Every structure is written in structure tokens, then in C-alpha cells.
């Protein structure tokens, strides 16, 4: 359907976008999964004689202020950031889907109370709430995941709730109730499968968003411990050398954050057009 309304030029652009996004995502996944076990190099190896070297053949991304290879640090950093992004994104989506579906399926006062709670949480800036949560624990990957997951299920809950509300009044739900289906069965068998594509899309879009949050927390010094490479930590430690004119320690981690984000958003955009060609404004990053 969508193909027929688009002109050939738009279609080609879209195809290029999807293919390049998929390629980048695949490359990123291969890099973070294969490089650490295959390449037996120590990302923490300090070489003070080679500190702050610009990109060269030996160090394609240059070295940082204690002479660590930045390419290796970036890959390890991306690995951590992606782990946080995927786990936090999935957790947030599961919580959001459950809350949204239950609120809409039960309706009435349950719905009102739950959605007012969602509004209350949404009125506090995400980052502030996230900082509050990480501040309660020792720095590490776990608290960052918890902090990002607990602050990001709200939009998914809203999306899922509105989808379920529109489905709830369809005759096929009436037919299921008339056929003796319990409330739980209606939710699990009929409502959740119908919102799964939307929830999946929300999950994919949540991954880069969660990565950015991890980077923001680490940049503020509240995320991962400083020795552990994460994209936020890399940018944070490189900030000082930027003023001295050394551009590479900030540029490459920054690109490692931006390029996979755009690729994931590109893939999610294609998926969105596929499941609902008419509604393109929703679920933007």
C-alpha cells in the first residue's frame, strides 16, 4: 500500500535509508560482540609516552590523555552503552506495556489513578528523576539501567493505553467476552498481541534514547565509574583536552553515540511506516 503512493525517488531514498541503517546496526553489533573476545588487547593499557596522539595508522582514533587507544575504548564504551540501552529499553517497554494495557483494560478508576500517576512522574524531568535514582546506589551498570528503565516507561504506557482503549470497544472483544473469556484472557490473547508491533517499535526507539541517558548520567559523573569505558565517560574525560585543541578524544566517542542512534531511528522509522503508513508523526525520538 505504502509503496504505491510514494514516487520512485522517495522509494529509493527510503530504501537507501533502510539498507544503510541496517548495515550500520549490523556493523555495530558485530563490533561490540566480536571485538572484545577476538582482539586480545587491553583497553585499559596505559602508555604515557604516547598520550594524546592524533589519529594515525597505529591508533586510528588517536589516544587519550593517558595514552589508551581510543578506537578500542570507543568499542568497549559502545558495548557498555548498548548493553544499558537494550536492557533499560526492554525493561521500560515491558513495564510501560503492562501498565498501559492494565489501565486501559480495567478502565474506570483504575485507569484514572494509574494515568494520573503517570502524569505526575512525567511532570518531573527524566534526568532529574534518573539522577535521584542513581544517587541512591553505588556507581555501576545496574543502577544506571534501573534509573533509565524506571524513568522511561511512561511514554510507552501512554501509547499502549491509547491503543488498547481503541481496541477495547471493538466488537471482537465483545465477542470474546460473550464467548466466556476472562479479563486476563482478553488482555493476553486479544489486546496485547494487537499492541505488540507498537510496543516493539517503542522498544527499538527506546534503545538509543536510553543510550543517551546513560551517556548523560556518565557525563555528569553519576553513571558508571570513571575507569570503565562508556561513551559518556569518554566524552567526559576528553572534555579537558578539547580546550587544548585536541579534537579526536571527543569527536570519535560522540560519533559512536550519534551514528548508531541515527541508524536505529532509521530502522524504527521504516518499521513504523510499515505497520502504520498513515501515522508518521507519533513515536518520534
Amino acid at each position, binding site marked *: 500500500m505504502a509503496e504505491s503512493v510514494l514516487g520512485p525517488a522517495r522509494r529509493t531514498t527510503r530504501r537507501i535509508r533502510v539498507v544503510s541503517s541496517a548495515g550500520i546496526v549490523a556493523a555495530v553489533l558485530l563490533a561490540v560482540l566480536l571485538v572484545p573476545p577476538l582482539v586480545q588487547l587491553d583497553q585499559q593499557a596505559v602508555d604515557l609516552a604516547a598520550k594524546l596522539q592524533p589519529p594515525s595508522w597505529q591508533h586510528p582514533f588517536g589516544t587519550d590523555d593517558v595514552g589508551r587507544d581510543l578506537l578500542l575504548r570507543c568499542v568497549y564504551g559502545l558495548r557498555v552503552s548498548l548493553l544499558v540501552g537494550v536492557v533499560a529499553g526492554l525493561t521500560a517497554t515491558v513495564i510501560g506495556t503492562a501498565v498501559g494495557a492494565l489501565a486501559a483494560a480495567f478502565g474506570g478508576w483504575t485507569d484514572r489513578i494509574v494515568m494520573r500517576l503517570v502524569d505526575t512522574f512525567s511532570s518531573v524531568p527524566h534526568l532529574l528523576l534518573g539522577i535521584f535514582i542513581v544517587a541512591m546506589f553505588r556507581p555501576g551498570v545496574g543502577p544506571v539501567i534501573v534509573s533509565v528503565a524506571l524513568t522511561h516507561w511512561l511514554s510507552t504506557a501512554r501509547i499502549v493505553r491509547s491503543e488498547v482503549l481503541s481496541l477495547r470497544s*471493538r*466488537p*471482537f472483544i*465483545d*465477542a*470474546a*467476552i*460473550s*464467548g*466466556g*473469556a*476472562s*479479563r486476563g*484472557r*482478553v488482555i493476553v*490473547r*486479544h489486546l496485547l*498481541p*494487537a499492541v505488540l508491533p507498537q510496543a516493539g517499535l517503542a522498544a527499538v526507539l527506546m534503545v538509543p534514547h536510553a543510550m543517551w541517558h546513560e551517556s548523560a548520567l556518565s557525563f555528569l559523573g553519576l553513571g558508571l565509574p570513571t575507569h570503565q569505558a562508556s561513551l559518556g565517560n569518554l566524552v567526559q574525560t576528553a572534555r579537558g583536552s578539547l580546550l587544548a585543541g585536541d579534537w579526536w578524544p571527543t569527536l570519535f566517542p560522540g560519533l559512536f553515540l550519534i551514528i548508531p542512534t541515527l541508524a536505529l531511528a532509521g530502522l524504527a522509522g521504516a518499521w513504523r511506516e510499515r505497520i502504520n503508513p498513515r501515522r508518521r508523526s507519533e513515536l518520534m525520538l
Partner: protein
Amino acid sequence: MLELTRITAGYDPRDPVVRDASLTIAPGESVGLLGPSGCGKSTLAKVAALLHRPDAGTVVLDGRPVRGWRHGAPRAQRTAVGVVFQQPRLSADPRLSLRELIAQPLRATGRRAEVTDRVAELAPAVGLTAELLNRRPHEVSDGQLQRACLARALVLRPRWLICDEMTAMLDASTTAALVAVVEAYRRESGAGLLAVGHDRVLLERWCDRTVGWQGISGRVATQESMSPTG
């Protein structure tokens, strides 16, 4: 008996669609409810199927007053009424094959063991081939889908059947086939029928009696017109 007494129902309590409607159906009886589009007959049918809580009035099903609607109604009471809706597209879960569609009420009531037998029995009765049973709703026509929806309504052997404009979207031969299936089921089981529609000729031929919806007052006048079974 299925007794609806002084039912007031709608979607806005200040402006109900159905006002003070009363209708009684005896076991084994078939009643046609005639009315123009938008008069509230589908809402009344949903009240009778325990799918819509009325703002006022009482429903008594087989001698027991109905106290809860939708999930609030006991399962035995809900499943005593089979419903067929007007639009098969909207009343079928798009992810289920027709076979699963028909089997859903059995699975929902924990009678999984009967699925194979009941589907094998009902599919030929409503005119669905084995090949059609494996297709999903978007792969069949409205008529074929409505046949599956009728089979789903009959699968639990309800004592009451409510057909809300069941044939409004269908051609004449499918209409005749579906009416014949309903009548065969009623002969065999003695179930009562409420057939809602706007087609006077069809309902008068199909039902023991037809009642009309008196537009402005919104009352269902019982026995407004009587006609012999067609």
C-alpha cells in the same frame, strides 16, 4: 425467558439511546426487532447479550436477574447468549485463523478437548471447507467470515441467540444460508432468537413475530405486528 424490562441505555446518561424499552422472548421463540439505523436497536441487543450495562431497567435471563455486565456477569450467564454482530471484519480477531476463531469460546471456557470435534461438526454446517478454516480473516470474504462468526456464536450451544444485523453486509444467497443454519440450530436445540435488523421482509419471513422500534418515544412496542413464520 429472556426478559428486558424498561431498559434505558446509551453512551451518555443524560441522553440515552434506548429509553424505557421492554421486550420478552420465550424459550424457542424467534423475535425480529425492526428499526431504522441509529434508533438504538443494536444497543438494546448488546444489553440483552450482557455486553452493555443499561442505565436503568432489569434483564432477567432464564429466571435469574442479571446483576453484572461484560466481565461482571457470571461466565455461565454470559455464555448462555450467543451473539453475531453486523460487521464480521470488526468482530473477528485479525490474528486468528477461522478455525481458532470458532474454537475461542471453547478454549476460553476450558473445554479444549472438544475443539476438534465441535469445529469439525460446525464447519460443514455453516458451509466452511477445511481449507478456509486455515485462512485468516483478511484472506476470506465478508460472507465466509460471517459464517465463521456464526459458528463461533453456536459453538457453546447457547440457549439464546442474538443476531445483530447479521446479514446486513451479505448477499442474498449467503443471507439465506446463514438464516437456514440459525433455524436448523434452533430446531435442534430449542434456543430463543432475537434477530435485529432493518429488513422487514427478511425478519417477517424469518421470525415468529416482529416488533418495531417506535422512533420518537423510543419504546419497543411488543406485538406491534404479528406475522406467520415464513
